[in-house]
């Protein structure tokens, strides 16, 4: 009983001190809880499908952010991780009959390997050159995949990949919690010493190297970590939708950047929120509730992205965060914008 009450009070302190002090964290928690109990309200299959795909893309967009947002190594070909993992998982499942719990980690490992293959040659490049060089990788693979249809099943993709679980709701309860866990892990990585070094590399690589940081090693680490998470997303996608050429397309590489920049880069939660705002908006709200004809959704989608970025060039979530929160000048903790003193160190907030 005593132990229980200790844990309860510790739990209460954690929530009171870390989550309920900030409206943004409270909202995030409430939204997560809402989406966790959402299937119990018996929604239709289509809504669940959109939310599952949104979760998969959220992992993917956050992994782009971990690489490009934090280290500044703009990756224009992020779909390569997604596609390699999807094809690895799909082919292993179709040809050897391996179960999803085995194929997804193997797919993710293949994506990590891909991260090394891309990372090593790209270490010499920077800025725009790096962006355009990375653009090439998924397109080269796409050409090869279409040229050898007897192994890769060409245009149509792998004919049949086992689903993750029997029912849509069960799949939802696999994918959505894994998105939260993986997102949290990425956020923790970005918040740790590694994340700080990634920041340093983006701000000034020469200075970072002069401070004794092996920038080569950390850039490779960023490529591999990003590949790992994107690979998990790709494996999940293969088992939920399918593994076909669409997983390597140029549009997917651009799409992930659109989501991430829309939400706000170098935050991890920004891209996740970006996907959860834009993807259901495009798939459900516009067509289902507003009755917009299907051929116009892409146009409206592009307009929304354009308008939001014209007025909030740093991204939607970053803009909201800067409006509602202040950073303590002394201890660098987030505070509600209405406070005049820091909630921890009581330093004056400006």
């Amino acid at each position, binding site marked *: 009983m005593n132990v229980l009450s200790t844990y309860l009070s510790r739990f209460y302190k954690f929530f009171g001190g870390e989550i309920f002090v900030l409206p943004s964290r409270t909202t995030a928690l409430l939204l997560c809880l809402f989406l966790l109990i959402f299937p119990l309200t018996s929604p239709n299959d289509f809504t669940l499908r959109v939310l599952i795909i949104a979760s998969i893309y959220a992992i993917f967009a956050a992994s782009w952010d971990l690489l*490009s947002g934090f280290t500044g190594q*703009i990756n224009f070909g992020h779909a390569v991780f997604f596609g390699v993992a999807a094809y690895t998982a799909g082919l292993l499942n179709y040809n050897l009959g391996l179960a999803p719990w085995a194929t997804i980690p193997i797919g993710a490992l293949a994506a990590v390997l891909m991260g090394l293959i891309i990372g090593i*040659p790209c270490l*010499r*490049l920077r800025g*725009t*050159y790096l*962006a*355009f*060089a990375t*653009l*090439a990788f998924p*397109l*080269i*693979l*796409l*050409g*090869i995949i*279409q*040229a050898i249809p007897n192994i890769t099943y060409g245009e149509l993709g792998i004919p049949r990949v086992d689903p993750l679980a029997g029912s849509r709701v069960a799949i939802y309860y696999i994918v959505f919690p894994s998105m939260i866990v993986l997102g949290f892990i990425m956020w923790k990585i970005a918040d740790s010493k590694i994340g700080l070094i990634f920041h340093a590399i983006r701000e000034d690589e020469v200075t970072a190297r002069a401070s004794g940081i092996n920038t080569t090693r950390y850039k490779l680490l960023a490529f591999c970590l990003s590949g790992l998470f994107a690979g998990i997303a790709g494996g999940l996608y293969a088992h939920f939708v399918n593994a076909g050429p669409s997983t390597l397309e*140029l549009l997917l590489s*651009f799409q992930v*950047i*659109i989501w991430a*920049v*829309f939400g706000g*880069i170098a935050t991890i939660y920004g891209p996740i929120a970006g996907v959860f705002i834009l993807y259901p908006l495009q798939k459900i709200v516009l067509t289902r509730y507003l009755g917009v004809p299907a*051929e*116009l959704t*892409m*146009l409206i*989608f*592009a*307009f929304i*992205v*354009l308008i939001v*970025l*014209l007025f909030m*060039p*740093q991204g939607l979530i970053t803009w909201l965060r800067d409006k509602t929160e202040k950073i303590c000048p002394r201890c660098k903790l987030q505070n509600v914008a209405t406070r005049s003193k820091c909630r921890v160190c009581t330093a004056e907030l400006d």
Partner: protein
Amino acid sequence: MAENIIVYGLVWSGVYALLAIGFSLIFGVARIVNLAHTAFYMLAAYLIFHLNTAAGLNVYLSVFLAIIIVTITGTLSYRLIIARIRQHESTTLIVTIALAVIFQEAVLKGFGGTFVSGPKLISGKTGIFGVGVLNQHLLTFGVVLLLLLATWAFLMKTRTGVAIRATAQDREVANLMGINVPGMEMITMAISAALAAIAGALVAPLGVLTPGMWMHPLIMILAVVVLGGLGSLKGSLIGAFILGFSEILVVFLAPSGSFLKTSVALTIMLIVIMIRPEGLFGIVFEEERG
């Protein structure tokens, strides 16, 4: 076979060169990666087709009108949209992609998604060394050569050209010397859009038009400018010929070549920039002053 490779190689390399030089110009002068560049080319091709068939205008008049309209569209989209967010690099990428998608969807909505082919500017064939070459191909290549020379002369010989090159070299010093930097950027954007529109006019009669036709040339010109070195016009020209010919060679000679053409071109680009990270003729930009 060999004559086909040479003709198609020259024509497509020329079109890539026009597009890549326009892209390279605006990147060099304003440091903008304009991913909507080939959307202007698509827009021009469609406008020509529809001014000619639907509005019933003369071919030459519709080409002229289309080039004017696209140039104005390009300049306006720079002035009203891109110029406002250009200091955020990744935002510029997304906004220009969004622009390209808007043009694509507008064309799809306005003109329909059926495959159409533009009107021929001239017909007939000419015999060169006993090989019949379509006059349209000859015209395309001639116009490309003429435009490349004109662009070169403009940049090298005129006062405005010198001012544009000065802006590309160092914005701040150019500004201190009394050059109207935003004005130069506008002019460069207009030239860049016009070059893309002319490329569109040249391509319209050669193949089928689809609203998604901007995607492949975009990939190719990105590869071309990286291969040649960002901001270098000579590099863009040579890069366009290397990649244009390698693409055509693969299509004609390799099995299932039409799938592999992009792969091979991009692999060549990767190999070159792994050996020379700044491209063939790249200038290493001095760090921008803050």
